[in-house]
């Protein structure tokens, strides 16, 4: 009888644990939907490695299944960003002129869960922390613990009411703060008005359009990925000319669902000196190595070991 009760207890606790974990992941899925569906406006602050605080005003609206985002610098140089889905246009004032540049991005905070949720599950364990207040909103802490040593810890505070991410910190295994972004204020909008989705900067000013880089994706690949990439999957491949390197470089972008790594590859010509070594800059790690006549350089907010393993997977 005692043995039967013991088996029942083990089965019950196991089932409860699996259910709890599944339930937590559904919260993450809700967070993904909340960032896309809700209309909100707030002050976003980020802290860099020098402990400087940068403050931005962010407005997000979903209108007819299109996402409209406007981000404005609150202090320092005047700059604003209009983002329609993943097409971004940046307006930056310089003296009496305005620089206009187009870019692509669809994973700016708080919209950090743009990747495959199953991929995140494969690379991270999810656990729940305690409740606290972020931007005067009640928030619950979720911790994404890496299953191996190739990535960092993600701490995420979700709004208890609607699961919108209110704060994100990325921490290395040695407790170093790699990323820290959070809402300082936030309000949820009811209005469907989109009049705010236009630049203020260009009024009565001349402007320079920075031609968007004509990135060619049809260039034949110089490389093959022949080994395991440790939970990282390719999301993009680009061929571009790097201004400083003055060579045609190929960029392979990989993600583990949360974090992104770029690997730049170009052949070393007769008069070029290949680069080698590793360096840390703005909490990102960068490594360079010379392999079979090619220069490989990898960048990302991941341990050096991860960058080394990923470059080892590249062969010619």
């Amino acid at each position, binding site marked *: 009888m005692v043995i039967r009760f013991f088996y029942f207890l083990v089965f019950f606790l196991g089932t409860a644990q699996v259910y709890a974990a599944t339930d937590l992941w559904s919260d993450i899925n809700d967070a993904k939907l909340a960032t896309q569906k809700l209309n909100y406006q707030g002050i*976003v602050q980020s802290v*860099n490695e020098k402990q400087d605080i*940068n403050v*931005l005003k*962010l407005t997000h609206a979903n209108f007819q299944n299109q996402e409209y985002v406007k981000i404005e*610098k609150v202090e320092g140089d005047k*700059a*604003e*960003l209009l983002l329609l889905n993943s097409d*971004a246009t*940046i*307006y*930056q004032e310089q003296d009496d002129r305005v*620089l*206009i540049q187009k*870019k*692509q*991005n669809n*994973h*700016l*905070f708080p919209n*950090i869960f743009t990747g495959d949720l199953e991929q995140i599950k494969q690379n991270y364990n999810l656990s729940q922390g305690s409740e606290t207040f972020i931007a005067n909103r009640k928030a619950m802490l979720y911790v994404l613990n890496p299953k191996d040593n190739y990535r960092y810890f993600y701490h995420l505070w979700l709004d208890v009411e609607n699961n919108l991410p209110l704060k994100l910190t990325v921490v290395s295994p040695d407790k170093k703060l790699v*990323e820290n*972004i959070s809402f300082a204020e936030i309000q949820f909008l009811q209005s469907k008005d989109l009049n705010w989705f236009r630049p203020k900067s260009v009024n009565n000013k001349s402007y320079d359009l*920075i031609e968007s*880089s*004509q*990135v*060619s994706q049809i260039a034949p690949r110089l490389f093959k990925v022949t080994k395991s990439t440790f939970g990282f999957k390719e999301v993009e491949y680009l061929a*571009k*000319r*790097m*201004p*400083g390197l003055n060579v045609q470089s190929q*960029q392979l*972008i990989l993600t583990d669902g949360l974090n*992104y790594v*770029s690997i730049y590859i170009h052949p*070393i*010509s*007769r*008069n*070029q*000196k*290949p*680069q*080698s*070594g590793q*360096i840390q*800059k*703005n909490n*990102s790690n*960068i*490594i*360079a*190595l*010379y392999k079979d*006549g090619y220069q490989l350089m990898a*960048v*990302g907010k991941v341990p050096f070991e991860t960058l080394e393993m990923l470059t080892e997977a590249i062969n010619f």
Partner: protein
Amino acid sequence: MSEKISEFFDHQTNANKIDSLVGDLTKNKKEKEAFKYYQLISDVLHHDHGFISDHAVDKIMQKIDQEPIQFNNGFIRPAMQNTLTFDFKKYALYVFASLMLVGTTWFIATNTNDSASSSVPVFLAEEISEQLLNDHNSTTTTNPNFFIQANYQADI
């Protein structure tokens, strides 16, 4: 007998055999004549020919020059008095060494391109790492503060 005389002038005859050689020469007139010729050839080769005319020396040298030249890389050695054997071990060693030399030359040539002198890596430059980071952040960052900068672009 001629070989004995030849060995004598090449200083290859040991003391015991010299007595035997002298004995033979005194008995055999024909061999005594041969000894004189060998003496003459030896003097010419050692430039010790003050007692004979230059004409005679030239004739002897001409005869020597007309002798066929045999290249012997050390593979052929006398086994017995009048026979030669082929040294396969030395020959195989020579062939192996030659192949190694050719192989090494080929390996160096194929694995060393024109940029060999420039392929010694230098340490990752600060400015390069800055540009890489900017380019990486321009497409992948989650931080809007990085993304809102309009001062960087990759160009073709």
